[in-house]
């Protein structure tokens, strides 16, 4: 079976600043990764929390490379970025 989508889940958590979403979105776009869904909140007035579902089928980067690019894009900010294959969530949370 050929997959027509390779979904990843990106999380970004940390101190709120102007332009975090723009930086992450730009980094994804530059690497041909298509955003499917975004969920973003400010917790307790200053903690930025974003979870993002994206498709990397057209990107040549591996998961660790994507992770490195995204971390690079928000370098200098107090943010924790994780990138995980979405199938892991599918397996863990859906029967």
């Amino acid at each position, binding site marked *: 079976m050929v997959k027509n989508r390779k*979904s990843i*889940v990106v*999380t970004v958590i940390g101190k709120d600043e102007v332009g975090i979403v723009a930086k992450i979105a730009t980094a994804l776009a530059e690497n041909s990764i298509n955003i499917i*869904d975004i*969920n973003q*909140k400010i917790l307790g007035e200053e903690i930025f*929390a974003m*979870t993002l*579902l994206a498709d990397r089928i057209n990107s040549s980067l*591996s*998961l*660790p490379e994507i*992770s490195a690019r995204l971390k690079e894009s928000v370098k200098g900010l107090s943010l924790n970025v*994780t*990138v*995980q*294959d*979405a*199938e*892991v*969530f*599918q*397996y*863990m*949370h859906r029967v």
Partner: protein
Amino acid sequence: MKFSNEEILETIGMIAEGKLDIRTVTLGISLLDCSDPSPAACARKIREKILARGEKLSDKADFVANEYGLPIVNKRISLTPLSLVVPVADPAAFLEVARAVDLAGEEIGVNFVGGYTAMIQKGETAIDQALIAAMPEVLATTQRFCASVVLATTRAGINMDGCHTMGRVIKDIAQRTAEQDGIGCAKLVLFANPVEDNPFMAGAYYGIGESESAILVGVSGPGVIRRAIENLGPAADLGQVAEAIKKSAFKITRAGELVGKEMARQLGVSFGNLDLSLAPTPAEGDSVGQVLEAMGLAMPGAPGSTAALMMLNDAVKKGGLFASSSVGGLSGAFIPVSEDASMIEAAKVGAITIEKLEAMTSVCSVGLDMIAVPGATSAETLAAVIADEMAIGCANHKTTAVRIIPAPGKDIGDFVHFGGLLGEAPVMAVSQICSDKFVRRGGRIPAPLQSLKN
């Protein structure tokens, strides 16, 4: 969004803080077609088969780990018991083949190979005797080949001559590896009722009922279970704790299933099974002892430890079985002493003793595991300790095992240091009351009754 924020953060937290990982991807390889009366030819055939089947194991495991963002800690291979492959009753032949296996393992980049194995639960063949005679030399002069000997099963009873022999062999191995605190003994597991599809070392071997080659995945995650229990708070009753363990075990197992299926696909072999076992490592937070502490015991070994462990072991199995149709291996909780920070601490202050560990092994996976005892402990006393553990397995239809290290020149309270995954351990006291006459009777303890169980 396809997944809720809570679900996403839970999974991320399991990996980052709970240290969820794929503990081992073990490739089982049948050697039944490698038998040859010429040791050199036998060694060559085995080497060629290991290279042909296992060449890509390491690279593919790294690829799959990157692809899913799930760490795969160890890559290993398990082989058909060597006593069934080398048809020569000559210790030199076993030594030659074992060295070839060790080198082949190094070539394909695995850190352990399992299968220097004899099954003597009812008696020994001349070939078994040759394998065992070469064992001290093999374990002292190879790096990664692990040995196991089956001494008892529920259907055969306990081979007491075998227990005595292995007591002497363990002493010999310890002496030959004295410079490293007897580390050779850490590569030898003595079994009652072993499973033939266990991915975990040192006791893995690839049974004769298995296919040509298969991927066996060992998933761990005591940190994940501990976090789930801690999140419940102190007011939750034990039924709720069991429920939380089950749910976490389910999720961990699903992650393992995903990785196992993909590994099998990448290597073009069948997906043998998934073994969800809470296996600790010396790393901070990766401890089964701390799971017992999260349940409310001040230290493992405290009264109540056996009850807590029974519940933990059972809940892990129940969650795992629902998550995958391929659950096999040992699937439970391991309580090795030297590989678990909280167990080491408990042994150091005397909270846990060999006697308490023995009781705990009656309700969990494996048995007296990675226990250092004084170097002066006699072969007969070791044999008696082994026999006790075999009896627990035999009578309860379960796997039990002994991995014990009589550390040369060390006494109670001293420390042994093995390094890496094998960790370090305080030397524990063994009862000084003599069992020599019992052990020297030898013979076989008959298989226990299967009916009239009241």
